[in-house]
């Protein structure tokens, strides 16, 4: 263990702003991005259930197919 006290750990030798500023933004990004991806999948699944009746029965990739996200 390299730290003498919790305060020393958070101070990071006086560079706490830089170290924790880096780690905090990484944590934020790596929480938000998975959340957005998971929400997009859930929405796609819900929408597939709602308007499945009037869609092209083939694989849904034909040229004049509407972008399902719009």
């Amino acid at each position, binding site marked *: 263990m390299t730290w003498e006290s919790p305060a020393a750990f958070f101070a990071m030798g006086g*560079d706490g702003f830089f170290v924790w500023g880096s780690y905090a933004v990484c944590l934020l990004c790596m929480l938000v991005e998975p959340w957005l991806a998971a929400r997009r*999948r859930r929405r796609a699944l819900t929408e597939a259930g709602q308007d499945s009746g009037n869609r092209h029965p083939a*694989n*849904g990739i034909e040229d004049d197919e509407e972008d399902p996200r719009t």
Partner: protein
Amino acid sequence: MPLTLYTFSSPPRFYALTGVLVPVCWALCVALTAAGLWMGLFVAPTDATQGEVYRIIFIHVPAAWMSMLLYLVMAFWAGIGWAFNARLASMVARAIAPTGAMFTFLALWTGALWGRPTWGTYWVWDARLTSELILLFLYLGYIALTEAIDDVRRADQAGALLAIVGSVNIPIIYFSVKWWNTLHQGATVSLTAAPKMADTMLTAMLLMTFACWAYAFAVVFTRTRALILERECGAAWVRELAPGGAR
């Protein structure tokens, strides 16, 4: 159904397989991150020249590696999707782009916060930093281009061209510290030379790198599954999955 190289190029099978893999990737990511942060923040010693601020390396280097690796993987699958008209490959390429852009941003962000206390500046128009910034623009350009074209397959193809041409930037980033005089330090770890760092530091960095790999797999698989549902929303198997859909 025999298991072949092409078994999981079918969207329904890929969807089912990744449904199992995503939780496994998340478990690996959490375990590796916990171990890596413990090694990096509590076990690794204070750096002789930089003091404590060097601990940014445990996220900076993995993020920078991922930003370059993911670009090549994205260009590869975009190219496969274009050359062989493989829809799933194109979807994987499209799913990688936002994650790659995020890692590029994190590499730049952590680099800026590391540069200020060690170099005295957040930013400098240096070869390594500038080429990494161009990588961010390539990712954003790829996303903007593919989202701007309504025809999904045409968007995939246009994006593939941009991704493949842009991959010339990757060796430029990687070798920039050798080719030009830059403020950025040279490679800390390479395949041909002994690492220039303490064992515990190297272990922590590798653990964090594997954690980022697990993270990237988990998020890219999740986004690919979303893309599959969006593009195949007329297919019977999707309707069966959907809540309230025909069964």
